[in-house]
């Protein structure tokens, strides 16, 4: 009888464990959680990249984003909303699809990009449109020029491996352009990546900035905020898509 009871208990426990595993499988895996694979392609991201995007349609779809990111896509100087103007389409597609999938944790933006607030097709269109934009508005910079210190940190820690010598990023690898971005946005995101709360952090970047103090983060952010949009640097070469 006792044996039977223990079998039943064991069976119940394993059933519960199975349920927990099943529930876990449906939850997105984020940085710091078991099973997180950085930059793992989601089916939606693959589909959007395959579809490509129509910047003309994207202009209309972007209307729903302008309340925060503004008509020129340059966000706000306070950095609450980043500058998206000219960002690589592949980067925008990665970030939007990962926010939708709950991999990048962004509760403020989620209601506006969640399915069906925008359709899968619109993601590609918006990304293509933003990539074509330019702005005349100046981005937010640090209160004082810390770019010499920032440049040294950027180079000593080989940040250029992914983000490029001029902060231009890498469209093919979905690494963002970080030049000409708002200072406060860069500080905030680096802090969230360092703390592991951004959700879709690259573990290599977490390691690279692990020893950065707040002052170091600010110096790097200030340096990047003072670099020009990559398109003005590489104007002779065709702009990356």
């Amino acid at each position: 009888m006792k044996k039977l009871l223990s079998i039943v208990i064991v069976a119940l426990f394993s059933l519960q464990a199975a349920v927990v595993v099943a529930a876990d499988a449906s939850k997105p895996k984020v940085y710091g959680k078991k099973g997180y694979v950085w930059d793992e392609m989601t089916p939606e991201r693959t589909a959007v990249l395959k579809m490509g995007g129509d910047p003309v349609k994207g202009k209309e779809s972007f209307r729903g984003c302008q309340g925060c990111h503004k008509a020129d896509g340059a966000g706000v100087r306070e950095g609450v909303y980043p500058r998206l103007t000219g960002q690589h389409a592949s980067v925008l597609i990665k970030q939007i699809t990962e926010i939708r999938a709950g991999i990048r944790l962004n509760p403020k933006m989620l209601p506006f990009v969640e399915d069906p607030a925008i359709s899968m097709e619109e993601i590609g269109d918006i990304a293509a449109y933003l990539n074509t934009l330019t702005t005349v508005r100046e981005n937010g910079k640090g209160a004082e020029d810390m770019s010499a210190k920032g440049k040294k940190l950027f180079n000593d820690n080989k940040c250029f491996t992914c983000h490029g010598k001029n902060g231009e990023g890498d469209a093919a690898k979905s690494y963002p352009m970080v030049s000409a971005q708002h200072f406060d946005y860069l500080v905030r995101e680096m802090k969230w990546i360092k703390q592991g709360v951004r959700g879709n952090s690259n573990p290599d970047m977490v390691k690279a900035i692990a020893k950065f103090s707040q002052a170091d983060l600010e110096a790097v952010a200030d340096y990047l905020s003072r670099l020009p949009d990559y398109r003005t640097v590489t104007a002779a070469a065709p702009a990356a898509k």
Partner: protein
Amino acid sequence: MKDKNKHIGMHLGTLGVLLGMLLTSAAVQAEPVPLEERLLLCGGCHNPDGNSVIPENPKLSAMNAKYLQRQMEDFKAGKRTNPIMDSIIPMVDESEFKALAKYFSEQKRLVGAPAADPSAPAVADASAPAAAGAMSEQAKADLVAKGQQIYLEGVLATAAPACGGCHGEDGSGNDKFPRLNGQNQTYVVSQLANFKSGARTNDPKGVMRAVAKRLTEEEMAAVAEYIFTLKEAE
């Protein structure tokens, strides 16, 4: 007090029209209802030119026709509810929505409070006293300025998007985002509150509910005051 009596009178007038329509609707169902007759029904609350003088009721003038038609369809289907509209909409056949929407979309939007004399033509005058009561001119100017800031910049602290992003900086809207300029304050506040509480759920994709949840009552009042004065770019 005089204003209040006027409103009660209007409500009674509307009720009369309503009852009349109720009694006759069964008999005329087969015949297409002439637009003039329909304007008696809709115009009681929304004014025949769509520039409602009752603060609780929306101006329909110059609204996008597709948007107006979708609202009527939503009332018909019970996707949007309002005690008065719920009793009116069963009298109007779905086949009439398009023509009604077209008519109101073609009317000029008047901005500001209506003229005191209903027989005189309404004039656009943002400085005329509204139904807001005993607010001082200075207090109202401050409220409008605060509302303008929210309308154009949003609220950074709560990540509430700027209204102008979707509705247009001049509030002219389009088929997805309704025209806002000159809209009645009481109506705007009530809709924002309904989106926030979830009493109104026919905003496509829930976007407006997400926005309204990030606004306080004070912010709603300010932005409604600004919208009431907002004139479309010439």
